[in-house]
C-alpha cells in the first residue's frame, strides 16, 4: 500500500512536469515561428522556409551557419555532402536516444522517476503491442530492430514539433532511407528463412503440386509480376506516408499561424493573431498525437511485412 501510494504520487508529479513542459513549448512555438518568418531575409515563402532543408539553423531570424563542403562528383553527378539542419537534428536526436537508452540498459530495476517510466512504457509498448502480436514465434530476434526504428522516428517527429528545431522526418530522403532499411530487412529475413529459391517461390500465388499444372502455370505467369511489384511498392508507400503526414501537419500549423500575415509590404493583421494562435495550438496538439501514431504505424507495418516474408510458406 505504501509503495503504491509513493508510485502514484511520483506518477502525478511526473505527469505534471511533462504537462508544464508541453505548455511551455506550446507558448514558445507560435511566437518563435512568427518572429522567424518576420525577421528572415533570404526566403520569401515562409512555408517553404519551414518545410525544406537548409545549410543554416534558424533561431528567430538569426542564422547559425553550418559547414559547406565541395560537392563530390561520382559518374558526372554532383553529390552535395554539406551538413544541413536536418542532418544536425537527426544526430542530436539519435545521440539523445543512445545516451538515455544505454543508461537505462544498465539499470535493470524499474526506475521510479519520470524518465525511466517513460522509457519503460515505450519499450514495453513496442514489445507487447507491436512486435509480439505480429511475430509471436521469433519476436526476440527482431525486437532490437523495431525498437531502433520506433525510437528514431518517434524522436524525429517530436523534435520537429519543438521550436527552432527541424525534425528530419519532414525530409523525404530520411523516410526513404528508413523504408529502404526495412525493405532490406524484409528481404534478408525471407532469404534467411527459405533460401533464395524458396523465397522466390513464395511469389507464386498457386502451388504446382495442389492444382492442375496448366491452370497453375497460367495464373503464376499472370500474377507473379503483381506479387513482385507488391514487394517494391510497400517501402515506397511506407516512406511517402510518414513524409506526407509530417509535412501536411506542419503545413496546416503554419497555415493557421500565417492567416494574419499579408506579406512583407502589408505586415500583420493584428486582429486575427489571437484566434489564429489558438487554432494552431489545437492543431499542434493533434500533431503530437500524429507524431506518435506515425511512429507506431511505421513500426507496425514493418513488422507485418516481415511476418509476411517469414510465414508465407506453401
Amino acid at each position, binding site marked *: 500500500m505504501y509503495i503504491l501510494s509513493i508510485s502514484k504520487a511520483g506518477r502525478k508529479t511526473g505527469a505534471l512536469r511533462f504537462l508544464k513542459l508541453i505548455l511551455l513549448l506550446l507558448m514558445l512555438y507560435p511566437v518563435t515561428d512568427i518572429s522567424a518568418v518576420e525577421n528572415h531575409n533570404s526566403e520569401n515563402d515562409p512555408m517553404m522556409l519551414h518545410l525544406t532543408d537548409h545549410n543554416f539553423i534558424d533561431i528567430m531570424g538569426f542564422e547559425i551557419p553550418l559547414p559547406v563542403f565541395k560537392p563530390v562528383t561520382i559518374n558526372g553527378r554532383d553529390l552535395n555532402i554539406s551538413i544541413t539542419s536536418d542532418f544536425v537534428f537527426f544526430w542530436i536526436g539519435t545521440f539523445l536516444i543512445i545516451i538515455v537508452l544505454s543508461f537505462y540498459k544498465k539499470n535493470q530495476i524499474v526506475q521510479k522517476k519520470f524518465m525511466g517510466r517513460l522509457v519503460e512504457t515505450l519499450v514495453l509498448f513496442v514489445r507487447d503491442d507491436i512486435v509480439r502480436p505480429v511475430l509471436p514465434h521469433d519476436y526476440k530476434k527482431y525486437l532490437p530492430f523495431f525498437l531502433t526504428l520506433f525510437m528514431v522516428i518517434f524522436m524525429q517527429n517530436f523534435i520537429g514539433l519543438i521550436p527552432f528545431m527541424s525534425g528530419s522526418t519532414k525530409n523525404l530522403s530520411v523516410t526513404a532511407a528508413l523504408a529502404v532499411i526495412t525493405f532490406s530487412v524484409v528481404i534478408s529475413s525471407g532469404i534467411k528463412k527459405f533460401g533464395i529459391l524458396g523465397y522466390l517461390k513464395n511469389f507464386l500465388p498457386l502451388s504446382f503440386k495442389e492444382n492442375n499444372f496448366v491452370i497453375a502455370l497460367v495464373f503464376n505467369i499472370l500474377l507473379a509480376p503483381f506479387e513482385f511489384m507488391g514487394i517494391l511498392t510497400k517501402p515506397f*508507400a511506407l516512406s511517402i*506516408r510518414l513524409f506526407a503526414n509530417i509535412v501536411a501537419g506542419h503545413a496546416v500549423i503554419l497555415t493557421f499561424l500565417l492567416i494574419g500575415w499579408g506579406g512583407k509590404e502589408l505586415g500583420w493583421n493584428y486582429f486575427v493573431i489571437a484566434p489564429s494562435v489558438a487554432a494552431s495550438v489545437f492543431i499542434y496538439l493533434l500533431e503530437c498525437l500524429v507524431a506518435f*501514431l506515425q511512429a507506431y504505424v511505421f513500426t507496425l507495418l514493418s513488422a507485418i511485412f516481415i511476418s509476411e516474408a517469414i510465414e508465407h510458406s506453401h
Partner: protein
Amino acid sequence: MDVGTGITLIGAGVGAGLVAIGAGIGIGLIGSAAVQAVARQPEASGKIQMLMILGAALVEGVAFFCALIAFLIYNTVK
C-alpha cells in the same frame, strides 16, 4: 494570372477535395465497423484497435499520395 493557370489550380483543388471525400468515407466505414466490433466483443478491443489503426493508416496513405500530387501541381504552376 492567365486562364490556364486558373484552371490548373482549380483542378488541383477539386482533386484534393474529391480525395478528401473518398478518404473520409473510408475512414468513417473503418471507424463504424470497429465500434460495432468492440460493442459485440469488448474483450477483443486491443486487437480491433490495432487493425483499425492499420486500416486507417492505409487509407490515409492513399489520401496523402493525392494531396502530394495536388501540392506538386500547385508548385509547378506557381
